């Protein structure tokens, strides 16, 4: 491989009682890449994320970030869910600086950065607003900025746009690609939406349940930058049918 490996999983397994949530899985994620993970419910996507985030201790195997073993250790990744999890009692600015507040004193640099990021990505007018005053899309953007300013090289995004309407979701996908291009982070992106996984990623991991495992690792042939035309590109259609076959069996 030409690029550096940021995240490496070796034979990572997670079991809950009798259920193998994640069968032994090995993965290598290149620094700066955008990797999408698709699969039905119960395929172990979120388990995989929780193991990488350090919320779950794997039964066996190694999780290595930038060469360091981080099994069961938190504080190493950015993490974002479908629920924006903004705290209602803090303003947008204070929500963006949340990670700092949870680990140390919030400095002026933290606040300045929060403001800079908010201005840069179109929420500068709303720094003093409480989350209740924002729309769903704006709230998800704030949640993403909060993830961004943790300065973690690896961002785990678990269906971040799953609760948004189709129109807002398209806007947010474009926006995410812009931010990703400008910040050079590595993104692992869980989604149910096959179109979304292809539209955003360099690489798609298809997962399957019972036991949860990666059944296909597809290198996305779709060129960048991605536009609305990408959605009708022959490469797009080809990859989509490949994934659909994997998810729903051969005859589809």
């Amino acid at each position, binding site marked *: 491989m030409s690029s550096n490996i940021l995240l490496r999983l070796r034979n990572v397994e997670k079991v809950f009682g009798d259920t193998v949530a994640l069968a032994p899985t090995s993965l290598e994620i290149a620094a700066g890449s955008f990797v999408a993970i698709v699969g039905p419910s119960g395929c172990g996507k979120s388990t995989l994320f929780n193991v990488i985030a*350090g*919320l779950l201790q794997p039964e066996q195997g190694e999780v290595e970030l930038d060469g360091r073993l981080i099994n069961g250790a*938190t*504080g190493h990744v950015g993490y974002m869910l479908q629920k924006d999890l903004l705290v209602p*009692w803090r*303003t947008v600015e204070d929500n963006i600086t949340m990670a700092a507040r*949870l*680990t140390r004193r919030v400095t002026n640099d933290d*606040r300045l950065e929060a403001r800079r990021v908010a201005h840069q990505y179109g929420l500068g007018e709303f720094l*003093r607003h409480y989350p209740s005053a924002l729309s769903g899309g704006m709230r998800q953007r704030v949640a993403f900025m909060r993830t961004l300013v943790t300065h973690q090289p690896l961002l785990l995004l678990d269906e971040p746009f799953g609760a948004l309407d189709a129109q807002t979701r398209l806007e947010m996908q474009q926006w995410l690609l812009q931010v990703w291009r400008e910040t050079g982070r590595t993104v692992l992106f869980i989604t149910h939406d096959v179109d979304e996984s292809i539209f955003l990623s360099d690489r798609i991991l298809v997962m399957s349940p019972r036991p949860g495992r990666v059944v296909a690792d597809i290198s996305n042939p779709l060129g960048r930058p991605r536009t609305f035309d990408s959605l009708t590109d022959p490469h797009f259609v080809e990859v989509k049918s490949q994934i659909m076959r994997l998810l729903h069996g051969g005859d589809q």
Partner: protein
Amino acid sequence: MKRRVLRNVGVPLLSIVLLLTIWQLIVVVFHIAPYIAPRPWGAIRAVTTDWSTLWPLVLGTIRETVYGFFVGALLGLSLGVIMAKVKVLQRLVYPVLVLSQAVPIIALAAPLVLILGFSVTPKVVIVAWIVFFPVTVNVLDGLSHVDQDLVNLAKVYGASRWRTFLQIEIPATTTPLFSGLKIGATYAVTGAIIGELAASSGSSLALYQEHANSNLNTAAVYGTTMVMTVIGISWFLLVVGAEVLATPWQRRSVARRQRWRRTPDDRTNVLNPK
């Protein structure tokens, strides 16, 4: 803004005026004798004419109410937090707490006097006894319903349990905490009066009323009741006011002021740091 003040202050005031009017009408229309039920104005006058005697007693009742409220609130908050954090204690202590509220408070007063004498202490204890319970129950409930995804998110960021508690769990419990405090505030005066009835040797608002009652000074009896009610309502309103100040996000969409003053890009405050 004007309309809101009218709605929030004017309408409740109007309902009180309406209540007094109905009272007045009933007394007048049914020719009720003043020693059975005075007219509102008579009750108010009974209080104002004897205000110099009443005022120190009122202060005494306020003191018992406020002290008891704070002791009860603090105790209630602590118990709620401890029980939420230590599940074994929750199972152990909860039945005792329920038991404590099942005991008729009047029955409790007599032994309290034996133990604590006739000082302000037994009244404070009775008020605290009433106030802590709704606070504990609400705080416990609030803490057990904090979004676990939010707690996990804090964990992923590398937050310690203490920071998570201070930054996530406690703020998330503000609303239930104030629900408990408001319930406690409404009952606090009742507790103080019960304490005064059972545990006063000298003078107190409750004894003043008893004295008026035995003298068939019904106007003073009603007047004193009104004074007690006013103390209760005032304390409740103060707690509501504290809640409004403590939870600006419940009413506002934009924060009144951010901590702009403490940032280097704000000139005036770089020169004059706080």
